[in-house]
């Protein structure tokens, strides 16, 4: 209301007024954008005292956050505005986002996981002008972002990265039972797991209400047997199918034969610690099991006293089923909020961060945990330097699918996901409910959501 005038008067004659600045940046953008400004070695003149507030999760890899903290003052200098990055627990991100959108006040840029751009579409600024050039310059975005960050043909989030997940397993334990290569089909894995569980080394899988591990396991399992939430239109519920029931039946046997049954209460953290303590032989996870084991190699050791990470193989995506082999990865993007008074500045910040020199440092700090959002990063020299078990993540994001499949990843798919209906479907099966009844239950729940 009053603010712009106040700012202008406070700034006096020495600095550029807000309106002048808007014109100036507008012109600069058409003439080559931020790169042009930077080449001219002149910080773009944002209203003095302008602040940019970026809200992100606390990264699973502390080094990645450290790198962003390091970049904040650099960005402030380059943009002529004060950039602060706030990190909060991933589970609390949506509470903050919702309150911010509803009260029209809060962070200017918010990190959006999964398909949240669909969820918050009406509160997000179209950032196609930022996202398109980055995608074009860097070999194109992974397909998954077309369904998560693009809403109605417009980019509502600038893709930032993808967290892949594959099965981490103990090489020596598998070799002991004669398994040299990780099973490629579910049935094979069940046989392997059966032998391992008999030796007190079950497969660990979380099935609780937790945002990462349980869904990233359950959705691909469903898909690999040909199950799907809906038909391709996303309107007709298709969950009560032969494929779903088969996957449920398989899972019941798999759970009993091969898995640690405590997994029903596990969240995303349990399998890491169980793996590090030698309680489980294999588990689906991001790179964090390996990365942490290596970083704390003097603390995390195997039963023979050797550093555990030497025995961790991370080479295996989830096995495949009759319908194929799939993955559900966690994509994330940055959204610029409509209520923000600094939308231009926010976009400039994103452009700045996505410049190769800056983004690269963040990418490297992640050490293969979060991979790039565009395909160009697959060719980055880092992949030659990372440990062999982590190289599987190099092109992993290519095969990712989003929940909602076979339909689009709309807000309704999010509802299915946040209600943990697919996860609970498998949890119910694990608890002994009949596969047909479980599928029927899920169909009922999905009908209520998809209408």
């Amino acid at each position: 209301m009053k603010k712009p005038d106040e700012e202008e008067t406070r700034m006096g004659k020495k600095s550029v007024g807000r309106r002048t600045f808007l014109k100036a940046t507008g012109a600069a953008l058409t003439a080559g954008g931020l790169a042009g400004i930077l080449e001219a070695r002149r910080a773009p003149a944002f209203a003095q005292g302008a602040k940019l507030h970026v809200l992100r999760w606390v990264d699973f890899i502390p080094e990645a956050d450290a790198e962003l903290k390091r970049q904040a003052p650099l960005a402030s200098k380059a943009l002529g505005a004060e950039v602060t990055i706030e990190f909060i627990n991933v589970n609390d991100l949506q509470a903050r986002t919702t309150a911010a959108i509803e009260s029209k006040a809060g962070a200017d840029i918010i990190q959006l996981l999964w398909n949240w751009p669909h969820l918050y579409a009406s509160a997000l600024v179209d950032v196609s002008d930022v996202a398109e050039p980055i995608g074009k310059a860097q070999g194109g975005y992974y397909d998954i972002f077309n369904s998560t960050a693009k809403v109605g043909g417009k980019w509502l989030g600038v893709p930032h990265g993808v967290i892949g997940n594959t099965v981490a397993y103990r090489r020596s334990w598998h070799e002991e039972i004669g398994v040299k290569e990780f099973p490629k089909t579910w049935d094979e894995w069940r046989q392997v797991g059966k032998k391992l569980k008999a030796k007190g080394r079950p497969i660990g899988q979380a099935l609780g209400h937790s945002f990462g591990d349980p869904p990233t396991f359950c959705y691909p399992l469903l898909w690999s047997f040909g199950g799907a939430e809906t038909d391709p239109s996303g309107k007709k519920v298709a969950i009560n199918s032969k494929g779903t029931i088969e996957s449920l039946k398989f899972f019941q046997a798999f759970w009993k034969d091969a898995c640690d049954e405590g997994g029903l209460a596990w969240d995303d953290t349990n399998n890491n610690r169980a793996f590090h303590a030698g309680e489980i032989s294999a588990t689906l996870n991001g790179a964090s099991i390996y990365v942490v084991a290596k970083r704390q190699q003097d603390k995390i050791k195997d039963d023979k006293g050797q550093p555990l990470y030497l025995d961790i193989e991370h080479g295996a995506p989830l096995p495949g089923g009759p319908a194929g082999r799939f993955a559900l990865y966690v994509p994330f993007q940055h959204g610029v909020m409509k209520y923000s008074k600094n939308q231009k500045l926010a976009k400039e910040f994103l452009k700045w961060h996505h410049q190769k020199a800056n983004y690269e440092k963040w990418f490297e700090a992640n050490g293969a945990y979060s991979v790039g959002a565009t395909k160009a990063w697959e060719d980055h020299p880092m992949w030659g330097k990372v440990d062999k078990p982590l190289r599987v993540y190099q092109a992993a994001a290519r095969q990712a699918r989003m929940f909602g499949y076979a339909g689009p990843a709309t807000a309704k798919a999010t509802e299915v996901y946040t209600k943990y209906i697919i996860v609970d479907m498998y949890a119910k099966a694990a608890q002994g409910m009949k596969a047909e009844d479980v599928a029927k239950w899920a169909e009922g729940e999905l009908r209520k959501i998809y209408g």
Partner: protein
Amino acid sequence: MADAPAREDIVTRLPAVRPGAFRRLLEHEQFLAALLLSPTLVILGLFIAYPFAKGIWLSVSSATVGNPGVFIGAENFVKVWNDSIFQKAAQNTVIYTAVATVFKLGLGMILALLLNHHFRGKRLIRASILLPFIIPTVLSTFAWKWMFDPTFSVINWTLYYFGLIAQRIPWLSDSNLALGSVIIVNVWRGMPFFAITLLAGLQTVNPELHEAAAMDGANGWQRFWRITWPLLLPVTMVVVLFSVIQTFADFQLVYVLTGGGPANSTHLFATYAYQIGVATGLLGEGAAISLAMFPILFVIVILQLWYIRRVEGA
């Protein structure tokens, strides 16, 4: 903030500053009541009235995050009513509240009676039993979460070590046990406040009454039931009332411990409302779930208030 002594100063000086009229006004009950109630009403009016009204509006609207939505009547409530997860959450909430409150009251009463004796280290023990109540719930719940850990549970380890169990107890992975485990944590957290409040109440009981009753041949239980309990009742009712409301609307504990899982067996009204309203962005439906507990609470409150008044009247 003005605290008690400061106010006292003001009051003692009052007659000198404003003689006559104002002082007489202060003697007027209705005026004085309005004056005394005003700070409360201002704060509640400023901070609760709007959100409360907005909450009611949301529950009858199709609002989602970022979209104000339109009036849709009772549609949200109908949808919620037919939702199997909601039904499960409602059932869980009732069990959770009822069981936890009974245990908090029962165990708290016994503890208060124990602490009412004189013994060495009384002061230290009285203070230390309050610890569970003091520590921020989120943090103590994380400690419990780890104590219940399916793989590393220290409780299981101890029981196993002493040969009391042969297999791990699935504290949080079994549907029925999970709700029980959540109740245990709630009782652990809430019981100390019951105990201390009841202990304070016990202090008011005149020992002579007990001695007289003992001389008349009343045993321990009779003395408790006939003398102690009636005297404790008014304070107990208030504490129970607030505890019921809080337990009914509990959020943090379940959110941290299980997130409502496994398979929704520990979902409560508040966690489910949060999941729908915040995680899914369906503000209208979330508000409807939140408000669905309102009538139930309201009935409980009215009954208890009526009871308190009756007891006081007697």
